[in-house]
């Protein structure tokens, strides 16, 4: 009993810290990615390659004046960012990052808690997320904010349907609602992942899930609630300081949730693309080593003066990481974690990539797209999967 509580607390602390750090740096990564897509360097001033930029942003936001406009509905105005943030973080608690591990004699899951209705839990929590935005829009007592809130609630209700339907299809194949079992049933090689699984590959529902996920997280090209050029920022126009930051963090946390759900449902979770006996365990080593070598090489021939010191440091760190991955003692939990993070990172990169590529939709296009195209296709896909499962299962 006691050890359970202690382990849970430790795990919660670790996950929370890691999540916060990720949230901080995810924004840096996104700014960098967008910048490179648009052929510009992005943040570069604060710290090497702008690496300290997030810290600076946090300091800036925390020290800013927290302005509460006089005409807002105060309780809800204050509650809205809190709700948004809470709901965004809550779903992380059921997401598994790896298999059972043994640390100092204690066996535990690399997961805060394993629910046998994990998928439903994530759906439930994410469906509550809309309150944050809707209430923020309404309580601000501002027409732009109200419009943003209205748009977001309509959009999120609408896109939840294809999202749920797209989730249902792989669930039919795996026949479980527990996220952990879901991954365990995709174990093996890349061909066992739901996205490519057996007689009924779920490519279609994977794409639908991704598209609906963009909409659920209010990302480009579906970011109408905060369309800055018509609604001057939408639902959070009246927010400043840490409250504003909360909405931002909630959005990124939601992105992470959606990405990890995509990975768990379709891409096999922490399972390597091919079995370790064919050398999949060497992939991270090779990657880190390659990155280290490249960094070292650029450190020898620096583009900037400062890089002469920073790049070799990073190169050395990467090489050290590669070495760590070779240690058998940590391989058991580090490898799954690596694969999970790699896959989630790839999906997150897709998010950024899309943002840097696609223009924003018009509102009627947005609604028409989900109701007239996405929903029927998701439905047809679910039906087909159901029939195939009944036929072959």
């Amino acid at each position, binding site marked *: 009993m006691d050890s359970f509580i202690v382990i849970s607390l430790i795990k919660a602390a670790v996950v929370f810290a890691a999540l916060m750090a990720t949230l901080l740096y995810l924004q840096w990564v996104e700014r960098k990615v967008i910048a490179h897509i648009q052929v510009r360097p992005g943040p570069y001033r604060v710290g090497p390659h702008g690496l300290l930029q997030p810290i600076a942003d946090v300091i800036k936001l925390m020290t800013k004046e927290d302005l509460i406009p006089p005409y807002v*509905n105060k309780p809800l105005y204050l509650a809205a960012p809190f709700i948004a943030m809470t709901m965004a973080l809550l779903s992380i608690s059921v997401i598994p990052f790896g298999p059972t591990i043994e640390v100092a004699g204690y066996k535990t899951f690399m997961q805060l808690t394993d629910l046998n209705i994990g998928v439903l839990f994530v759906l439930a929590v994410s*469906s509550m997320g*809309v*309150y944050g935005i809707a209430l923020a829009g*309404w309580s601000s007592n501002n027409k732009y904010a109200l419009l943003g809130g209205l748009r977001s609630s309509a959009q999120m209700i609408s896109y939840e349907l294809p999202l749920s339907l797209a989730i249902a299809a792989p669930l039919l194949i795996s026949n479980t609602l527990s996220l952990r079992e879901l991954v365990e049933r995709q174990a093996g090689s890349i061909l066992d992942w739901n996205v490519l699984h057996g007689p009924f590959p779920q490519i279609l529902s994977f794409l639908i899930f991704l598209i609906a996920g963009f909409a659920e997280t209010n990302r480009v090209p579906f970011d109408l609630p905060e369309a800055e050029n018509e609604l001057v920022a939408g639902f959070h126009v009246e927010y400043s300081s840490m409250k504003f930051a909360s909405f931002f963090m909630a959005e990124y946390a939601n992105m992470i949730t959606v990405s990890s759900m995509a990975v768990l449902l379709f891409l096999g979770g922490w399972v390597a693309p091919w079995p370790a006996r064919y050398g999949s365990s060497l992939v991270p080593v090779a990657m880190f080593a390659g990155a280290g070598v490249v960094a070292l090489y650029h450190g020898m021939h620096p583009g900037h003066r400062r890089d002469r010191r920073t790049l070799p440091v990073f190169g050395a760190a990467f090489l050290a990481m590669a070495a760590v991955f070779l240690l058998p003692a940590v391989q058991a939990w580090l490898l799954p974690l690596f694969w999970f993070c790699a896959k989630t990172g790839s999906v997150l990169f897709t998010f950024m990539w899309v943002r840097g590529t696609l223009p924003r939709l018009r509102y009627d296009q947005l609604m028409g797209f989900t109701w007239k195209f996405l929903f029927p296709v998701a439905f047809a896909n679910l039906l087909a999967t159901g029939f195939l499962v009944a036929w072959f299962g």
Partner: protein
Amino acid sequence: MDVILFLIFAMIAVVCAINVVVQTHPISSAISLVGVMGSLAVLYLLLGAEFIAAAQVIVYAGAIMVLFVFVIMLLNAGAESKHGRSLVAQLLGAPLLVALLGLLAYFVERLYPRGVSVRFGGFTHGTPLDIGRALFTTYLLPFEATSILILIAIVGAIVLAWKEID
């Protein structure tokens, strides 16, 4: 532990429910109602109804109440107006309510002596598997009927909302 959980969430539920009734602004009522539903979901978990708890949050809190909030925002409904009166409701309402509550409580106490009690984990047949099995065997016809009902409701809602302003 179970008693404490029950008392906490029952308290939240009752307070939120009272708030639903006494708040004059619809959106406050709506948020309070979400609170009631959330705490009820926890109580469902306590009773071993995992699926219903999840459905409660997804369907009620996540869809129906969002729809309410959406409509309130769309109509920009303010605090309710005070005019209009119902003599019957004013005269009979409160006594009847008290009578109803008293009767219900009395019969519950009379019909359910203290012997039967609830303990977390005392009922394990509320999983999605059990629900699904019952839904597609014993309750197949009602299930299909509800799907027709939903379809009709969608059509009806569209027809109603389609009407232009006179």
